[in-house]
């Protein structure tokens, strides 16, 4: 645009840039907090009315039929990835609507992943696995590989008080009340902290579809963040502060 500006307009453009650089904006208010509070209140306030409407029940029946037809191939709508962007992560989706249907079991890695070793897990993934510095000198208590036949397997390192998931896959969380989700940041990374209390976790494949067999209830608190295209998921009994210290200490194998 500058090149096309006439000689008369160039000083105006310079004046605008200068004005923009020095403009005294008021401090940005804590909008996120108040929006989240309203998001928590809104569904609760409207839920009874919606559920009691015959039209809503009819629509629900149609949706259920569609879901049955679609079966396990039903993909998460692509637009939902906007939710992840809303919460600051690009490969993580968190659906904060109330959970419907049966709650999946709370499974530990041995129920859905194959026992492996650190070396084998490292060979299976195409990125360097990272270990928390405080545990870097010792092998994890256990290592598991999930979806090793898939393009993007998941490496799971199990320690005494946390399980550390590392994958190029995305992550989908459901049934989580917005007030249980906390945006945190550390080391230049935006992250999500989900309080303990049971949310449903499902991995997403490279097309953003649910990996149905990975669906399970997670009782422990979870720290989620991304770094260099890798999604890290720390399920832990540690406090949020301790978990962040642990996450900051990750180093290459």
């Amino acid at each position, binding site marked *: 645009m500058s090149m096309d500006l006439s000689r*008369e307009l160039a000083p105006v453009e310079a004046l*605008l840039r200068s004005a*923009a650089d020095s403009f005294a904006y008021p401090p940005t208010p804590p909008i996120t907090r108040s929006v989240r509070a309203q998001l928590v209140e809104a569904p609760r306030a409207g839920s009874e009315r919606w559920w009691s409407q015959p039209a809503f029940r009819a629509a629900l029946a149609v949706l259920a039929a569609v879901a049955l037809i679609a079966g396990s191939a039903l993909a998460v709508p692509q*637009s939902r990835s906007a939710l992840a962007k809303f919460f600051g992560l690009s490969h993580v989706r968190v659906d904060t609507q109330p959970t419907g249907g049966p709650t999946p079991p709370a499974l530990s890695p041995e129920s859905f992943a194959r026992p492996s070793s650190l070396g084998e897990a490292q060979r299976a993934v195409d990125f360097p696995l990272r270990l928390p510095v405080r545990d870097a000198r010792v092998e994890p208590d256990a290592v598991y590989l999930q979806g090793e036949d898939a393009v993007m397997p998941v490496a799971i390192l199990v320690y005494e008080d946390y399980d550390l998931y590392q994958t190029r896959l995305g992550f989908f969380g459901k049934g989580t009340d917005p007030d249980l989700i906390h945006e945190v940041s550390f080391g230049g990374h935006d992250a999500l902290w989900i309080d303990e209390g049971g949310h449903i976790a499902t991995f997403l494949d490279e097309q953003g579809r649910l990996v149905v067999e990975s669906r399970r209830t997670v009782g422990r608190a979870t720290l989620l963040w991304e770094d260099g295209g890798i999604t890290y998921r720390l399920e832990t009994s540690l406090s949020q502060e301790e978990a962040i210290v642990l996450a900051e200490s990750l180093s290459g194998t």
Partner: protein
Amino acid sequence: MRQYEEVAFRVAYLIVRDEAEARDVAQEAFLRAYGSLGRFDARRAFRPWLLRIVTNLALNSARKAARQRRRDERYERAADVQRTVASVEETVEAQERGRRVWQAMSTLSADDQTVLYLRYFLATSEEDAATTIGRPVGTVKSRVHRALGRLRQVIQEQYPDLLPPLPEEMGSQR
């Protein structure tokens, strides 16, 4: 969401010119964005989509003439205080200059103001500005050009000290 908080508030503030109103507009924009996620095309950038919601809400707010007048009166009172401070603090000089440019911009149409805020105050690319206002990139370019011309005219008439004289004007003064 937090990463868009500042830009949403700032564009709202530039347009509605009132801090409390800008906060309300930004909040409402986030709530509407959340409610409209089903219509958002995830292949596109989120920022201009959100800014479009913010600017539309802010423009609607600013168009309410009676409220605008009350805000202007409040703003003028606040500006008087700020001018006093500026005379004391030399570092505020640049801010005062920015404030006067902003004041000059208030005489432009809402469309002109919006495109100038997006391009110069928020450093939005032409592509993102086009998405934000819902017009082609070519329209953004031409609208910016015309808005700059109109702003120059306003500044020449009402704030002549803000712009350096053109070379030919300097020549005629000799």
